[in-house]
């Protein structure tokens, strides 16, 4: 079974979530736990770094849809960064750029959060 893991780095009020490996139907619950953990703690400013993500399926994308509303209702956002071209294409194909800000680098995404203040 494909491996997938997440790790979180706190950077002030911003939480950077690093994804690694294959995010598919099988591993989606793991990301779900990560998000719900952050939401439970009231940490709504999230940058997801895709640098080490090799693959994402629609079930994986669904996790982003499932949490975005709650997070935005609380004044937060999920910003995406550092996608490989392959991963970006999947996001692009399904129209995600319409709903999510996608940045080339983690720093740009973090900066965007800080700008707002």
């Amino acid at each position, binding site marked *: 079974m494909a491996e997938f893991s997440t790790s979180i780095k706190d950077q002030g009020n911003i939480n950077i979530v690093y994804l690694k490996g294959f995010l*598919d*139907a*099988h591993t*989606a*619950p793991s990301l*779900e736990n990560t998000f719900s953990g952050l939401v439970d703690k009231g940490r709504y400013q999230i940058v997801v770094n895709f640098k080490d993500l090799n693959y994402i*399926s*629609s*079930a*994986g*994308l*669904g*996790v*982003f*849809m*499932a949490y*975005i*509303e709650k997070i935005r209702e609380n004044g937060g956002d999920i910003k995406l960064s550092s996608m490989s071209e392959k991963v970006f*294409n*999947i996001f692009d*194909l*399904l*129209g*995600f750029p*319409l*709903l999510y800000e996608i940045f080339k680098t983690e720093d740009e995404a973090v900066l965007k959060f800080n700008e707002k203040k």
Partner: protein
Amino acid sequence: MNESEDLKAKRNLKALVELGRLINSSLDLDFILNNLLLTSLGKFLSTRGFIALKKDGCLKPIAHKGIDDQLLNKFPKISNQNELKSDEFKEYLNSIKIVMLDEICSSQECIGIIALGEKLNKIPYTDDDAEFLHTITNIGATAIQNSLMLTELKKTNRILDSRISRLNSLFELSKEFGLFSESTKVARLLVYSVIGQFLIQKFAVVSIDGNNIKILESKFPQDELLNSINKINIKLITNSLLKNEIELNYKNLNKLGVELIVPMQLQGETKGLILLGKRANEIDFSEADVEYIYSVGSLAIVSIENQRLFKEALEKQKLEEDLEIARDIQRNLLPHKIPQFKNFDLVANTVFSKQVGGDYYDVISLDENHFCVAIADVSGKGVSAALMMANLQAFLKTICKQGMKIDEATGLINDLISENTTEGKFITFFWALIDDETKQMLYVNAGHNPPLLIRKEKITKLDKGGIILGVMKTMIPYLSENLQLEKDDVIVLFTDGVSEAMNQNGEEFSDERLEKLSVSLTSKSAEEISVVIQNEVSKFAYGTLQSDDITLMIIKVK
């Protein structure tokens, strides 16, 4: 031909070659059109012009110079070449001061037009000019065609990519659905896949199990959703419902924001629904989208249904194991061997029902001349009934040897049972102490079917006693009755499994039938009486499922 014309021709040729090289080196449509237009304007010293291309069967201006956007927006609808010559179009061209027009034709068809305004020096376009413009458009046509084809190819590729992505999802899900053990997990995965694919934020998955509607997953307000769904007959939703149908026929769901309902079907029967809100990109669901969601739903429902059946089988198995254990306990509680007595011929046995009933009987020797008989029916079935029976036996075996008075002993047993039972459980109980020497019998009946004492074809019902065991602590003391038994007296003790045995018409064997039969059998031995009654009961109930234990004890006085 003079020299200056020669030079002019050379310059024109050079310009054409350059243009050709430039625009053919790019596949970017804007770049190509821009250059084409600029080259033409430069060549003819014109300040305005546009290029319109055929899109979805109509001409649409794509690139323009020196013409107001607003004026271009009024571009008339032109779907064939004849309309280029229409008055309406001529009028329009006049209004934007266009005087020169050429069609851009590829090898197969006309793909658009190029239009130019008057020359800055007001000199009209000559035939040579027209021919030159045509050469330019010919060169441009190939480049435009190539670029359009690339765009089309990209579009097709994207559609293909999206199809592949959907197929991948389906494949992935079918693998996962086989692994997950809980329907809620399956539902969640189903939902994630669909909302990820279609950019949906509000959704719900409901399943139907018999008449029960279960919300497996919901981002709509749960209570309102359940309310709305309970008002409709889900089984009648056999086709996917789009927004307009929901607006029309399911107003409550429409109010919640449901824009698509897709049934989850198994063998043509609707077993659940997927309800989806609007897409974040505001695009309507296409037929292919709905079909995809239907496929995912079908995959999921198979998995959900399998899990349900598996659970059901597991529970049934557990229940059967439970019953098996109970049956073992019950069998072991009944006496393996019935003692022999001087003056009494005693036979007892139980025919167990498939489900465990709570029948119990016992025959306990107290001393050389005394023995105790008991018959009981514990309410409920399964292990709990068997354990209660075990309790009763333990109390009985202890108490009957204490030399207590039988009525007081019954009160004590009742207190003990009451303390040890859960609400609503009880035991009907009859017991008697019999003197093998004097043939005296002292009994107490705690709510059990009264045993029949038959003497010379006359029946006495042994019903003295009190309340059934286990309902409440003893408030009113139990009564006992002392009887002097005589030779050839027959006592028939039984449980309701005998009197309430049903035939195929739903009639009970009944007390009357049992009494009449018993009276007719008094000349026979206890064993024979027992066998005949049992045979009659089983004959009566032939073809029906025995739902309760049948216990019979016959005591005949020698």
